[in-house]
């Protein structure tokens, strides 16, 4: 075991160029893949938050009694898909109106209704919810929902998610192609060595294992390199966002970069090991 590991490590020295090439190629592929996944995650997260930012406004009937309001608030809160409910009294609203539009409101009585501002936890249920609440005729006058904007944003978010998923698949495919090509070539360049080892009586596993470990190490190092790059890039990008476009900050999702990096490195290792296994098999099978 130890000896085979040692083999794999000395192979690094023996095939300097190949090692360098394999590691950097894997690093680039995984960095691109990881970068895309992170971007995709951030974008779809931002889209989700944009949708979440939409509020539904429930306007109560003018004749509603103040005592009935807490019960109504309760009733709305209890509905499925509602995240939070905030009460705005008609006096509050009117005070604000008169402050903002002194000309338009001068000499007019307070026509504003008591209002509940409803934040939704599931934007997709918005229409259904508004329908339901609108049916409470005894207390609710009307429900205001920025339906068309919300639908637009929802559709865009959906679209982005789907396209992003497809893109991720394509990228994974691309990374697989590139990495497997690299490993295949580097095993191909050693087919004579493999042949000699077989002729000397080495079992397939005896040949395969060091190459496997080597491929795994290539993948691991490449993945780690990619993770490092992404960590750095993500950090400085985060800073840039905070400095230049602070209005985007609420839309940022925080990512556990340590975990992500680990996943990337492990993914690389898996990719490398798998790639070697597959490409060695060809040369081992020919007796």
């Amino acid at each position, binding site marked *: 075991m130890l*000896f*085979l590991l040692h083999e794999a490590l000395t192979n690094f020295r023996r095939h300097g160029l190949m090692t360098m090439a394999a590691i950097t190629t894997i690093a680039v592929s995984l960095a691109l893949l990881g970068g895309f996944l992170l971007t995709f995650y951030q974008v779809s997260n931002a889209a989700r938050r944009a949708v979440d930012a939409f509020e539904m406004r429930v306007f109560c009937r003018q004749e509603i009694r103040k005592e009935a309001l807490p019960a109504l608030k309760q009733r709305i809160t209890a509905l499925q898909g509602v995240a939070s409910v905030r009460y705005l009294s008609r006096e509050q609203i009117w005070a604000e109106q008169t402050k903002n539009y002194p000309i338009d409101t001068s000499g007019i009585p307070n026509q504003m209704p008591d209002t509940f501002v409803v934040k939704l936890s599931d934007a997709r249920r918005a229409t259904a919810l508004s329908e339901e609440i609108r049916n409470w005729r005894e207390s609710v006058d009307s429900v205001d929902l920025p339906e068309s904007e919300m639908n637009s944003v929802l559709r865009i978010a959906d679209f982005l998610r789907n396209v992003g998923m497809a893109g991720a698949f394509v990228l994974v495919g691309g990374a697989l192609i590139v990495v497997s090509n690299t490993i295949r070539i580097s095993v191909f360049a050693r087919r004579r060595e493999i042949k000699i*080892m077989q002729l*000397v*009586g080495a*079992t397939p596993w005896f040949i395969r294992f060091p190459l496997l470990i080597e491929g795994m190490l290539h993948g691991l190092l490449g993945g780690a390199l990619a993770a490092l790059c992404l960590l750095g890039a993500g950090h400085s990008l985060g800073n840039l966002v905070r400095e230049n476009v602070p209005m985007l900050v609420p839309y940022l999702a925080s990512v556990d970069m340590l975990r992500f990096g680990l996943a990337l490195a492990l993914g690389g290792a898996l990719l490398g090991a798998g790639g070697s296994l597959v490409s060695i098999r060809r040369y081992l099978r020919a*007796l």
Partner: protein
Amino acid sequence: MRVQSGARIGLFIPTGLSVFLPACPPVRYNSRAMIEMSHVSVTYKGEVDALCDVSLCIPGGDFVFLVGPTGAGKSTLLRLLYRDLLPSSGALVVAGYDLTRLRARDVPLLRRQMGIVFQDYGLLPQRTVWENIVFACQVLGQPRREIRKKLPEVLDQVGMTHRCDAYPGELSGGEQQRVAIARALVNQPPLLIADEPTGNLDPETSVGIMDVLREANRRGTTVLVATHDKTSVDRLRRRVIAVERGRIVRDEGQAAYAAEAIPILTTTLPRRNW
């Protein structure tokens, strides 16, 4: 970490290695013959007939020369023995393994029964002379301490001790050939197959190498040598199998040798006008 235990780990191959050896050894035939070939033919790519209906029996402990002009099929015959090739037809039993039925995963077991000197040396270019020979031992799962003990001896036999840290690319043709011979000998295999082991050696070194082979033979190894070096063939006076255009044209045992020595060797005599 104690140096002592670290050193031990470094020196021994852990028993976990045994997973790399096939689990159940295949059936071995109980035959006195080391090599039994009957009606074997080899056709490359469906075109070149390299061997035609060759039958042959080499008992264990024999020392056999395989001679013949270039392209006669000597290397092809040897490649059959270590199952680098499968015969197009015919039966072949080597060291008790029926090669026509041997499963692919048992091939390493067969090859561990033999030491092989390839015509193109077949050294691993990224390993030093020492590492090349060590590799052949590690394949058998031998503990490193034992390997370290026996290596100097075999290197000394072929006279390559002084260059043991060189890479094959840094050696002369003859030196590479001697390393290949050392690698084949190091495990004292039951069967030794050598393809042109003295092609790039000067006559003196050739004689030395032939003596090493003879010594191995005396210790019980069956030796099969393909060669053009008729001087050695002549000197050793062993069984000679002559191949020509894929057929065995002569097979002269040790006994018959003395009487028929001259006809075989005519071509090597300096005076021959060709």
